[in-house]
């Protein structure tokens, strides 16, 4: 793929861009914080099981936000839960990403019209990097979401700050 350039033949020295190497390491070991809220959590578990294995991409579940890189918000976000999600997002250490899985956390989903207790989209409280549509999305769709996130990470730079407008607003 051209990331690693071998400058000297039959040698154990590889010359590569530091940024590419860091991004390559980061994107191939994204540890997610298992945060299943509702039905999409079952599909997230099915993606982590043997048939649509997550582990082959280097993605494993962690229970604590302090140890994870990405938070998959899988399921409906309610008003009662939204302040906790904000707190958990703030507990994750940077660089951190958010994948919004399923219709409910993208935009409120089937509960957009009369759901008085449903927050219409988790991006009203935290910034989201990838939206995965579906109700619930197939495991392959979630894997595609992760691949898109990997593409986003491989384009990141360690010198400039991430877009400051995307910082979370105080609730």
């Amino acid at each position: 793929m051209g990331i690693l350039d071998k400058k000297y033949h039959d040698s154990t020295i590889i010359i590569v861009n530091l940024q590419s190497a860091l991004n390559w390491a980061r994107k191939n070991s994204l540890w997610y914080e298992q945060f299943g809220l509702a039905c999409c959590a079952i599909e997230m578990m099915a993606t982590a099981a043997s048939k649509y294995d997550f582990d082959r991409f280097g993605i494993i579940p962690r229970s604590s936000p302090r140890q994870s890189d990405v938070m998959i918000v899988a399921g409906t976000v309610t008003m009662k839960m939204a302040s906790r999600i904000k707190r958990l997002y703030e507990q994750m250490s940077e660089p951190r990403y958010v994948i919004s899985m399923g219709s409910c956390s993208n935009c409120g989903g089937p509960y957009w019209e009369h759901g008085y207790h449903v927050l219409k989209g988790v991006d009203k409280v935290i910034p989201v990097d990838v939206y995965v549509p579906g109700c619930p999305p197939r495991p392959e769709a979630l894997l595609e979401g992760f691949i898109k996130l990997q593409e986003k990470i491989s384009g990141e730079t360690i010198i400039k700050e991430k877009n400051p407008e995307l910082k979370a607003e105080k609730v």
Partner: protein
Amino acid sequence: MKQQEEIFEYLQKEFGEETVEFYKGDVGQPWLKLPAEYLKKMANFLRDNAELRFNTLMCLSGTHYPDKSELGVTYHLHSTLHGHTVAFKVATPADQPEIPSVESIWKTANWHEREAMDMFGILFKDHPNMKRILCPDDWQGYPLRKDYKPQEYYQSMPTGT
């Protein structure tokens, strides 16, 4: 095993003709109507009487009747020993809703009554923990009433789209 009509006659014999009423819609299952003051006595009788023995409270639901300006509670009871079922309703005015709690008789009623309070605003007397259960504690309004308008913001998060 008794049918609902037989249970109705049994209760009438015990508590008098005017206290219990029998209703049936055009389709579906019939129900009895009891006044709120007799609720605890009748509930104890329904649970402990040897011929009735309703040992399980299957469901307790609140309802809002806007045309009569009343809030009602429907109780569905079942007896695992005899196999019969009964449904009865209790009504209370919508501006001052208060119904005695049956939590001491069937423990299931604990959470069901909290939910009825959360959704409709019906207060149950002698309930050990009368607090909201599904909506947050500082939620305004009673959501399942027919005239409910959701609040626009909750803790500065928009409830609309």
